[in-house]
Structures are given as structure tokens and as C-alpha cells.
């Protein structure tokens, strides 16, 4: 356990010492939310709606980039090989990264929630605020697995390019930036295949009780997808050299 905590501590230190990664990852989703979710979409329940979707967007960044590019880098430099020779348990490397990512996601959500509550005038019961926060935090996991797979499969420049495509693609297609119902029909069909869409639906059901027809389906799909991505990540890890 001490080893794991040290490992996570190291990850945190590493990140703090590279603020060019940390600051944009933490603040960009909130800036986007402030611009598109609050300022440019006045009236109605829009601020609450976009809080639900931008919350998913906020945790995707640290998860996909932190893992994808970080792991690819470290693998290229032989750091991964060195890790495997150390007496620490083999999973601690991944687990530590996951914990660090969760910490970053937790931090990235804080400015977003403050903006929603105090600028966007979103009002929710304590249970909804907490439930939404927990859901947003957990939605990190499948994206971390996606990042991990990328990191183990591709070299760092490939991982950067692919991470960007997946990050932006999933955000837009899943309806995190704008509601899926404004899309043409074929894009709405594509949206159903993205984890972001189903996380957004779950989050929306917390801020708006009327949006809860397909909760069980959304939940099952999200869980199934998480397992699938975890499996993919494991495979990639085993294959990685």
C-alpha cells in the first residue's frame, strides 16, 4: 500500500511540475462551459443541462490524455520496462495512474460546479449535486481505459493524434457540447454507440427527473462498455513491449 501511495504521490508531483498539462486540462472544460453552457445559452434550464454534459467532458481530458500520452511517453523511454523489474506489484503502475487521474478529474469538476451553481444559477438538492459529482467522477474509468489502450499500442506522437480525435469525437458525437436532438438522424444513431452519450443521459436524469425513460439501458451500456475498454486495455498491456 505504501508503494501504491508513493506511486500516486509521484504522479501528482510529476503533474504539478508540468503545469502546461495540468492547468489547461483542469480549466478548459470550465471555460468552455462558461462560454457555451452559460453565457451563450440564456434562459430555461440550459445551465443545468450543460452542467450534466460538460461534467462528462471535464473528466475525459485527464483520463484520455493523462493515460494515452503519458503511458506512450514512458514506454518509449523504457520506463515501463524498468517498472516491471521493480519489486512493486505489476498492477500498481496502472492503479496509481488511475488514482491520480481520478484526483485530477475530481479537481477539474470543482470550478465547473462552482460556475454552474453561482453563475449559471443551477439549483439542485444536495443528493443530486452529490450523485452527479459521483457519476461524473466514475465516468472517468472507461475513458482512462481508452487512454491506457492507446498508450500501450502507439508511440507518443501517434497517441497524441489519436487521443485528440477520440477525445473531440466522443465529446461532439455523444452530445456533450450540444444536445443530440439537434443532430441529423444519422448522427443521432451514431451517438447511441458512444459511451459519452450514455453517461450524459445518466447525468441528465439526475438534473432533470423527466429525462429518465431509458436509465437502465444507459446504465447497462455504460457498464458493458467499461468492461470492454478495460479488457482492451489489459490486452494492450500484455502485448506492449
Amino acid at each position, binding site marked *: 500500500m*505504501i508503494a501504491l*501511495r*508513493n*506511486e*500516486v*504521490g*509521484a504522479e*501528482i*508531483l510529476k503533474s504539478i511540475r508540468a503545469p502546461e498539462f495540468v492547468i489547461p486540462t483542469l480549466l478548459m472544460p470550465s471555460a468552455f462551459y462558461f462560454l457555451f453552457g452559460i453565457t451563450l445559452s440564456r434562459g430555461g434550464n440550459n445551465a443545468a443541462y450543460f452542467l450534466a454534459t460538460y461534467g462528462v467532458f471535464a473528466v475525459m481530458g485527464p483520463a484520455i490524455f493523462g493515460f494515452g500520452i503519458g503511458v506512450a511517453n514512458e514506454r518509449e523511454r523504457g520506463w515501463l520496462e524498468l517498472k516491471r523489474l521493480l519489486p512493486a506489484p505489476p498492477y500498481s503502475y496502472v492503479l496509481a495512474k488511475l488514482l491520480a487521474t481520478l*484526483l485530477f478529474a*475530481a*479537481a477539474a469538476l*470543482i470550478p465547473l*460546479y*462552482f460556475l*454552474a*451553481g*453561482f453563475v449559471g*444559477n*443551477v*439549483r*439542485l*438538492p*444536495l443528493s443530486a*449535486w*452529490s450523485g452527479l*459529482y459521483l457519476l461524473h467522477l466514475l465516468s472517468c474509468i472507461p475513458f482512462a481505459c481508452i487512454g491506457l489502450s492507446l498508450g500501450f499500442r502507439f508511440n507518443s506522437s501517434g497517441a497524441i493524434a489519436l487521443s485528440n480525435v477520440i477525445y473531440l469525437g466522443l465529446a461532439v458525437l455523444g452530445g456533450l457540447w450540444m444536445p443530440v436532438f439537434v443532430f441529423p438522424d444519422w448522427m443521432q444513431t451514431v451517438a447511441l454507440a458512444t459511451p459519452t452519450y450514455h453517461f450524459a443521459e445518466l447525468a441528465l436524469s439526475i438534473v432533470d427527473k423527466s429525462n429518465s425513460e431509458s436509465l437502465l439501458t444507459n446504465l447497462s451500456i455504460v457498464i458493458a462498455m467499461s468492461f470492454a475498454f478495460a479488457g482492451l486495455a489489459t490486452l494492450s498491456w500484455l502485448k506492449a513491449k
Partner: protein
Amino acid sequence: MLNSVFNKAILSISLVVLVMLIVLPKPNKFDFDLLIKGARIISHQGVEVEADIAVLDGQISLVSKDIEGDAKQTHDAHGQFVMPMLMDAHTHSFGDALSNTLLFGVSTHVDMFTSTAFMNSLERAKPQARLITAGMLATVQRGHGTQFGSHVDTIEQDTDIRNWVAKRKQEGSAFIKLVYMPNSRVFASLDLNTAKLIIKESQEQGLLAVAHVSTQQAALEMVSAGIDGLVHQFADTEVTDEFIALALQNEVFVIPTLSVIASAAHSDVTKGFTDKLSDNPSVSSAQLAQLKSRLGTTKIPGFDYETAALNTKKMHIAGIPILAGSDAPNPGTAYGLSLHQELNLLAQSGLSTLEAIKAATTNVSKIFSPESPAELSIGSEANLLILNASPLESIENTLNIQQIIYQGELIDREEPISESSSPKLHATFLSSFSTGFDIDGLLAWAATDDSIRNGNSKASISISQERLKVNAEVNNGFIFPWAGAAVFFDKPRDLTDLSHLQFTIEGTNGTYTVMAFSGAETNLPATIPIDVTQTETVASINMKAFEGIDLSKVRGFAIVVSEPGKFTYSIDDVKLVKSN
């Protein structure tokens, strides 16, 4: 060292998240949606009691002194008076009737004949009054009700009455209205046996049957035949004791519609009411003109206002239930507003203020909507009229409205268009059609037809040889069918410096209609007929001849056909001039 970084990070983030979740804004928990404090409430017994009224989910949830609890909205009504919103027991609802009437505190129209198209079109964003309607009326070919041009499913010799009533029920008719005018020199009428059959069938199928009558003889025959109510007072002879005894025995109610009888009788009994409205900001100039207009060009025989008022008083004293109905939008009436006029007339004819109020509230709801009583009781729909002065003191105070709450929501009573927003226009071309339909920043031409009122007419316009060409096909459907071309200003214009609307026209032979739109958007247009032939003629129309026009706020004109058929015509050189 790394270990402590981890601990510090976990600890600080957890702490910040915890604080955040606690301080983030929570929804307020309210006991009520609306709390009206300190109002004087007009009770059934006609006394004023000071109390609070709490509204939740569109219903009155509590009426009591000093109600405790948080409300989303609170209305301080100290010094104000609260009564139920009114119900109009006799209307013909078209167009924006149901949203207009709300603005004068009328929650419900008991409608005595409208189109099924209107009945089926009641899903709009604007709040609107409830419609309880007879739908299609029972009359014969060339009978009263067929003169408006809209389709009427008339009763013929071979009509199966059971099926006819069942069809109405299926269309959503809440009761059956029949027209019985056996002695009319103008209209054909159902015979007594058919009328009896309709009454019997309606009642067997669970619907009330009410009758339009205009003489005491016809009224007596209907009451003997078992009718549930009469939708007009008769104004030909003074009511007999025989009629009163029979009406009481058969528990018949009467909707006198004194407003429209005053209009048919060309009586000036309504002058006092309309004169006071001229400085009421909620009343538009066109509504005022509608109230001042009269049914027919001269007094219609058989309509004596004094007799109608006396009969109403006698029936009321004898204990026959009197229901207030306006018969809007007939000439001399306007939606909503006329119900207040009706209350004035009822009070003048001998009902106390409380009895007049009951005539437009509980008397109507008892018969037409027993499930939703018009009263301030717990569990009733929150339809409240908040007044600045007591209606028990003077019935005129029902129009001294402070606030209207309909189904628990405050009704936004917007001001009519203000004078300053109508720029003055001097002699001008409305179009010569050499450069197109529109003049930027002034006006636009468009095809117009009654399809916007769910009618079946069609119109299209084009420009050919620098003339406006109109194809119009008028079909029955809407009660006042039309199709043609219209020109609208970008905003209401003041035309008081001008006198005539002129244009050249040629087309299919016939009588066309020129319409003028003025004042509020909801007003019906004023019309003038013109004869058109295939030879080009210049039409010059004195705008003052448009009945009820408000020349200071003209929105536009239309040149249309309003009789069924196919018409093509062309228009040119449309202008507004000043001539002496």
C-alpha cells in the same frame, strides 16, 4: 515524502469537494405556488371576509386567516377583493376568443355553436379559457345558424336524430343546442315534433338540451317539450304566470343575453357602460366600437329591451335560475368585456350584485361544469379575479381588475399598442407593382385566406404586367370565409390625415370585400363590399365608412372575396389620398 503528497492531495480535494457540495445552491422548498395575503373574499353569502388564499398546483389549497408557509410568489391583496373568475354562458368562440376573454377575467366559454375545426384547434401556447361547447347546432336548411356561410349539418326530413346526436357527442359537443323559431318570417325552423325528438335523444344520451327561441310561445312549447334551458330571453311579450309555473316545475334555466337583445332592440341601455370604458386602458378602441355597433340597421321587430329586462326580473324573483351570457361576438358585444356589461344589465333589471355575480359563476358551473365549481373553495381550480373595489358594492367593479389568476398562474394583461408607436402617414402609394410586392420599411403584400382560421379557402398572388394578380378560391368552412390579397404596414400607422383608399380593380364578376385592420391584433376587421366586373374600374373607399375603424392605428387592408367560388382579379395603383 511522496506518501505525504498523496495524503495531502486526497485530503485537500476531499475537503474542497465536501465544502463545495454543501455551499452549492439548493432549490427552495415551497409550501405554495402562490399566496394571496389579506384579501377581502367575496363569499357565497355575499359577505366580505378578510383571509389569505394559498394556491398549489393550480388549485386553491387553503383559504384561512393568516396562512403560514413559504410561497414562490406572494401577492399582497390588502384592500383588494377576491372573487371567482367569471363564466360566460353564451358565446360563439372563434379565432383568439379564448385568450382574449381571459384578459377580462372570464375563465370559461359555454359556447352555443362553433365550428368543429375550432373545437379541434385548441392546442396553443397562450393561456386560454376553457371551452364547453354545443359544437354543431341543430337547425334546418335556411334556418337560423346557416346564414354565416360555414358548414351546418342541417336536420332534414330523413335525418336519423339518434345518429345525429351521437355524431355530435363524438365530435365533443358537451350539450345540444337547437334552434326553434316556428313563427320566424326570416328563417326556416325545426318543427315541434323534431325538436321534441332531439330533446329526448340528447337527454337519453346524457347531454343537456338547450334551445334558441325568440318568442314566448316558442319558449313555452320548448319548456313543455322538456328542454333543459333557454339560451335567450324572449322579448316579444311579458312573461305569463303559466310560463313561470311550468318553467319552475320543469327546472328550466334561462340565459337572458340582455346585451345582444339591447343590440337588436337598438336600445341605449348599454350606453352608460360603454361610455365609462373609453378611458379604460385595457379596452381597445376597436373593442369599444364593437360594443357600440348594433345588430341590423334598425330595431328588429319582436325585440323590446324593456320586456326582456322585465321578464328576466320576474323569472329571477320566481326562482328560475338566471345564467349570465353575452352572445359575443355578435354586433354590440366583445369577448369577455360583454359579460361585465351583461352583469350590469342583470343588476339594472333587478338582480342584486351578489345574485348577478352568481349568475356568472356558480349558476353556470352548477349546470355546465359541476365537476369544477366557480367558487373559492378548497380543491377548486384557482381561477381568481382580484379587484380594486368591491363588486358587492357596485357590479361595475368587476371590471376594476387588479390581477387575474387562471389555473394558479398570473395572467399577463399587456397594454394595448400605445399611441406614440403609430407614425403618421401622408398621401402615399401603397403599391404600383412595378418593382415588386413590398416597400421596405413601410409595407408588404401577401396572400390571405381563412385557412389561418382552419377554413378551406385558398389564395395566391403574383405580379404580372406590373399589376397584382390574385387567384382566390373561397370554400365553406370558416364561419366568415375569405380569400384574396392583403397589405400590412410594418407597424400600425396613423392615417388620420387621409380620407380615401383608392385602387383600380378588374376580375371575375362579383361582390368583393375590402377589409381594414386597425387597433389590437385580435380585433375583427371592418369590411366594405365593392362590386367588381371584368372592366377596370377605380374603387375609392372612404375609410371613415369602415365600421369601428381606428384610423390612428391602421395595420393594413385586404381586398378579398368572401362568397364561395373561384375568382381571379388584378389590382393596381393602390394609394391612400386625402380628398374633400
